[in-house]
């Protein structure tokens, strides 16, 4: 704080601090407080608001606990998001390792460009592209049928489609933290491990992954949170059997007209996400400040 004042003078520093404060209060704190307020009140017709029926209770949250379908979808969203993070990790780790330790400067810039270019396009459009690729009479089925790998087209939409689209959508958030972490690993350490007779598997489990742990945890946290809060991919690529919890929340707000229950569901999702994040960080012995870096 004193640093800030020393560097920019009292005026500019005060402006900076106020802007940060306004951002935090207006964009983070207020909406969340409002959400909590909504979640704990009953859904009432406008006339009854502030009346005798209006009061705080946990009824909206308990409703979720009692409703079997919603509860199942909620739990599935959690483990499916973890699965998305895991699959994204499995896809990204080899690429990140290659980029950080093996690629020449030229290869690296081409690879980075190829990976980043798709992200110039809006997430909805990217998901729509998957919608087209995975369509029943779409290119993927056409290619597989023509190659003779499958006899009849497969319905990709559903869990598989959602997983594919999400892994694709969040690759950057997993790839870059891991790449950064592995990049800082001294090449000689890998060589030393090889020289001492370690197999590639042991080199990765004993030397590379422990070194990249903070990056991997960061990638997991990002991907998990984004997946759990994702709406577009399940809405476009899901099937009735693969509903995502965010869709239920959407339904409460815009179809059911029950903002209070929607807010309660959103609150539960938020709390659970936070819990998962904190547990992951605890397991990986990484603190939040490292993730922010």
């Amino acid at each position, binding site marked *: 704080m004193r640093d800030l004042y020393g560097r920019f003078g009292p005026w500019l520093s005060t402006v900076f601090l106020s802007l940060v404060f306004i951002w935090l209060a207006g964009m983070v704190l207020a909406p969340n407080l409002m959400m909590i307020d909504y979640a704990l009140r009953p859904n009432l017709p406008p006339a009854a608001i502030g009346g005798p029926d209006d009061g705080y209770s946990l009824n909206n949250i308990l409703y979720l606990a009692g409703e079997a379908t919603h509860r199942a979808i909620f739990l599935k969203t959690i483990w499916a998001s973890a699965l998305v993070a895991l699959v994204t990790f499995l896809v990204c780790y080899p690429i990140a390792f290659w980029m950080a330790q093996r690629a020449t400067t030229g290869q690296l810039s081409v690879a980075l460009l190829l990976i980043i270019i798709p992200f110039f396009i809006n997430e909805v459009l990217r998901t729509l592209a998957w919608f087209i690729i995975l369509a029943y009479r779409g290119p993927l089925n056409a290619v597989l049928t023509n190659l003779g790998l499958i006899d009849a087209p497969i319905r990709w939409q559903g869990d598989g489609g959602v997983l594919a689209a999400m892994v694709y959508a969040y690759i950057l958030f997993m790839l870059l933290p891991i790449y950064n972490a592995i990049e800082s690993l001294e090449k*000689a*350490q890998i060589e*030393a491990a090889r*020289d*001492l*007779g*370690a197999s590639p598997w042991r080199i990765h489990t*004993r030397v590379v992954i*422990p*070194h990249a742990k903070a990056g991997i945890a960061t990638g997991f946290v990002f991907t998990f949170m984004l997946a759990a809060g994702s709406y577009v991919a399940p809405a476009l690529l899901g099937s009735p059997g693969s509903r995502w919890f965010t869709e239920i929340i959407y339904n409460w707000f815009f179809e059911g007209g029950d903002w209070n229950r929607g807010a309660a569901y959103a609150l539960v999702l938020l709390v659970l996400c936070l819990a998962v994040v904190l547990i992951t960080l605890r397991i990986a012995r990484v603190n939040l400040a490292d993730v922010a870096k």
Partner: protein
Amino acid sequence: MSHSVELAQIGMTFGTTRAVSDVSFKVEQGEFFSILGPSGCGKTTILRMIAGFIEPTEGRVLIGGRDMKGLGPNQRPTAMIFQSLALFPLMPVWENIAFGLEARGVGKAERRRKADELLRLIALEGYGDRMPGELSGGQRQRVAIARALAVEPGVLLLDEPLSALDLKLRQHMRAELRALQKRTGVTFIYITHDQSEALAMSDRVAVMSAGLLQQVATPRELYDNPATAFVARFVGETNAISGRISDVQDGRARIDTALGILSGRAGQGARAGQQGTIYIRPEALMPGDPVNALDARIERVDFEGAFALVHGRFADGAALAASVPSTRLADAPAPGAETRFGFAPEHAVVLGDA
């Protein structure tokens, strides 16, 4: 199995860069062998070819008479000590040392026992559970050596492992490395750009320059009988005076220089009638010596205790470096004065210019 290392006409080209050309030498089992040269001379490339990290583009590497072609670093009877040491910072010291055993599937109790045994060998008993970051530079150095020795290699490859240490520690580690080598009988191949390090520790030294092997010899031989101008200039200090070789006989050569006719031992390429250079070691130049007299103007005298380093210019402008024992210092006048130096012919060598 013997662990001699033989390089047969190996060469290495990276893209368009020629890193090593036509290098051949043989390191005997149990020898302390150094490869000495300035940075970029190809010495690290040679070490990495012996270790198996890179395959030579030409020639063969033989260890114990066996061609190592196609064998990776984990399949060769070598262990490398890296310039940066490359200890695993997230493993305690004992796991670092036992890592090679872990890779070979040795059980934990046995690994721990072996690690403790090696810790005793390097005088770091009880340090097994510390992390590498908690050790001093010299201790980390020793852990790296123990880690390499744990896999019982026939050949230990050392890539300038002492370069990060301060002078005192470096000198101490030299002696320790030498003792360790004698004790274990392992063949050591040691890379360095520090000539005093190479001379002090090695049984034999290979000198390299720009990818070419200049000379392989014992330290003494290298110092007294440099085969090439590069070796004469790179190994130790020297005074070089050029001229025309007038006469070569009985192992002596006379050379006609701008400073007069000088005589020394006839070295490689010294033939009468050719251009040549006489190389005189600083400690060979004595003030007041009448043989091979050279006039010089003194510029600076650095008194170092046992001897003094005298810097100046010969009459033709070439630099003079003489190291005069303190007992003879009375003969060397103060800076600014003209003095006559001389040297015994057997302490100088005449080489033909290439």
